[in-house]
């Protein structure tokens, strides 16, 4: 067991956990930030995507000891009122079905747009290809990413 001081969503959090605990489970079990989802545990589905210093990473495959002082953003911290352009586009396009994968999808999409505000259709496909949606909302996800992009200056 070790003590960790984590920078998440602009706040300091403390957690006493084993060094090999994936960030995913620290977020969910220790810090009650359950918007980050568990889907496969091996970095294949993208449901657990968070930002680490602005880059989309799989929190199921990132041990807490490796986070250090890097800033973590989860879906709870993406915007104060749930109105990040990507979230707004998700609502406007009415993307979710079961909804379980969507926070991970949104975190991947928002990381893409912060790096590349005007992605081509192919770039959207490539960036989003690591996130599985079992309900098959891919068309609307693609549409929502494009819509969010169109609203960015």
């Amino acid at each position: 067991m070790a003590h960790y001081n984590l920078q998440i969503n602009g706040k300091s959090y403390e957690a006493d956990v084993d060094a090999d605990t994936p960030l995913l489970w620290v977020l969910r079990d220790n810090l009650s930030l359950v918007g980050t989802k568990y889907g496969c545990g091996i970095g294949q589905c993208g449901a657990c995507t968070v930002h680490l210093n602005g880059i989309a990473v799989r929190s199921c495959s990132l041990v807490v000891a490796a986070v250090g002082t890097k800033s973590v953003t989860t879906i709870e911290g993406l915007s104060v009122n749930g109105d990040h352009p990507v979230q707004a586009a998700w609502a406007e396009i009415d993307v979710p079905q079961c909804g379980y994968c969507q926070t991970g999808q949104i975190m991947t999409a928002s990381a893409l747009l912060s790096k590349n505000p005007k992605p081509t259709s192919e770039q959207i496909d490539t960036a989003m290809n690591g996130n599985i949606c079992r309900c098959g909302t891919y068309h609307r996800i693609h549409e929502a990413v494009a819509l969010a992009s169109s609203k960015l200056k």
Partner: protein
Amino acid sequence: MSTLLKTNRRDFIKIAATAGGGLFLGFQLSDSFASVLSVSSDGIVETAGEISFNNYLSISPDGIVTIFSPNPELGQNIKTSFPMIVAEELDADWTKVKVKQANLDAKKYERQLTGGSGAIPHSWERLRKAGATARQMLVEAAAKRWNVSVSTLTTDTGVVWHKESGRKLSYGELATEASTVPIPTEVKLKDIKDFKIIGTALPNVDNNDMITGKPLYGLDFYREGMLFAMIQRPTSFGMKIKSVDAAAAKAMPGISDVVTFKNNVAVVGKSTWQVEKARKLLKIEYEVEGAIENTTDHDRLFKELLDSKEGATVRRKDGDVDAAFASAAKVITKEYQCPFLSHAPMEPMNFFAHVRPDGVELVGPSQTPEAARTETAKLLGVAPETITLELTRLGGGFGRRLKVDYVVEAAELSSLIKAPVKVIWTREDDLTGGSYRPAVRYRFGAALDANGSLTGYKLRGVGINVANSTREDNFPSGAVDNLLIDSIEHKSPITTGAWRAPITNFLAFAEQAFLDEVALASNQDPIQFRLALLEKAKKSPVGAIKYDIDRTKAVIELVAEKSGWGKKKNLAQGFSVYFSHRSYVAQVAEVEMKNGKPSLQKIYAAADCGIVINKSGANQQVTGGIVDGLGHALYGQLTFKDGATEQKNFNNYRLIRMKEVPEVEVHFVNNGIDPTGLGEPALPPTGGAVANAYFKATGKRLYSQPFSKQEEMKGVNLGEKM
């Protein structure tokens, strides 16, 4: 087409003022109980006697309409579409509707389950009546207050109007008075042309919570003092525990208990990660209990069963099929096979249970909460009434959550450790010890006369743990004079269960691919071939016909028109049509040769589910069903070696991804018929449309799924955009 429905006191329960004022309406369907809802002295609604409600709505003085949605929500959008139906007849202001997920309550609700695409057809009329009854009571309350005739009043968007005087009152202002109005014995339902909410595109009521990461799902549920558990189940089907050495696991930090029950070894502790880590240290020996099966055994067995002269159950027999085949000008016989599949909902299995001496609390995602409670009651030897079940949102279901194994084991574990516990399955757990879509093989036979007419039709289905793999009354039954459909089941220790569009999720592909082959073998256009059969079934039906011929034709014609069937020079089109779960869907897939390789460009769908409740949700269900059908037809495969699955996570259990999805265009037949469900019917036709287009493009016929593993598709990733 205005409908006047008689309402007796068994349909609607006496209304009562709620504690804070306002209209509280319960309604029920069951005729088996007289129902009374009464108000106690303190104004709180209570029930008296045996009450069987199916839903209720309340209106508060501030005008908020709360509608409870009883059916489990797993992405089929029922939590939005059910309230739309109630709100429509109530003439409510949708912006003031709040929707709440109801917990399991078998006395209030009927058929509180998600399966078979049945919720909408089952609930359509009673949801309308519920809204209409409340509306009528609000109108009567206004009539009384203004001392005018009810017939001079109208409603619109949460307001009762008296047009002559220009007076108006909101539902909130009228709610308390309305609650004292006698329940109407007759309610008038809207003419469908007057619908204002039904037929529009309204966003999912949970969108905001979903896109901000609110704790909606079972896996998100947390209760102070709750323990976490993971269960090691046998790694192979057909094995049982011989011995358990849990010493190393028990010694791990955070572990409070290791409990062996039935074939399970549960590791209980303070956090998910701690129990997952400790579980890896269990030393369990297993011994053989039943058959240890391999996919190669199944392949061999299927061929034997298809040839077997005995053991088949005849499902349907029309005319003399042997004579028809003996005298045929041409006979075509083909076989199709599908593999096991995992449901793989994105939210892995989980359930919270707290078994206390005075009652049992269950919380989590279930498609069949009532069955979960019944089985838990049986196991624990308690009365079902002592068990509460709170429904969370389901992170997908696809039939996996029709099983109650993961609920009952949580309750059993809680009873053993005498503590509140949440059992969590890893993805690997569900891919190794879960429940699966069974593997099935079909043999189809067609007898054609010299004119190319289908004179005989044979189908045998052989499946693993599938009592009936044939759906014998579907098309083309009824259109063929001589027909024989039978099936044989192989019993296996591998756990199987319903998977989205059970049986038809594969049968439709096999049948529609076979009919395509038969049509082309007799030089007929695949669509004209089917239309001719339908015409024959209409003019001179053979035996019982359980699909509507005109509705089938309508979706065929609509998809042919929208896709420009037969008019596109550079595209290979494949057609498919299927009736399942009371709805009709026809599809056309388009494959284009690019750089010498086939590429799936687009799928058109025409669906008839009667009245479309929510345009946005309906489009989602059809599009999602197509993506699901395509993904599993292309990639889905679970194989077994020595009783164990060979695919254990998403690294080799392949699901479709964004790059592999073609354009999808969805159309609906507008016929005003009472609505049916859409959660399943769009999935079955997809495999057939795609395989038929692939044949048209390449001359190669796909007989087995997943397509991507077939020799005929070597070197091709059909879904990948090029």
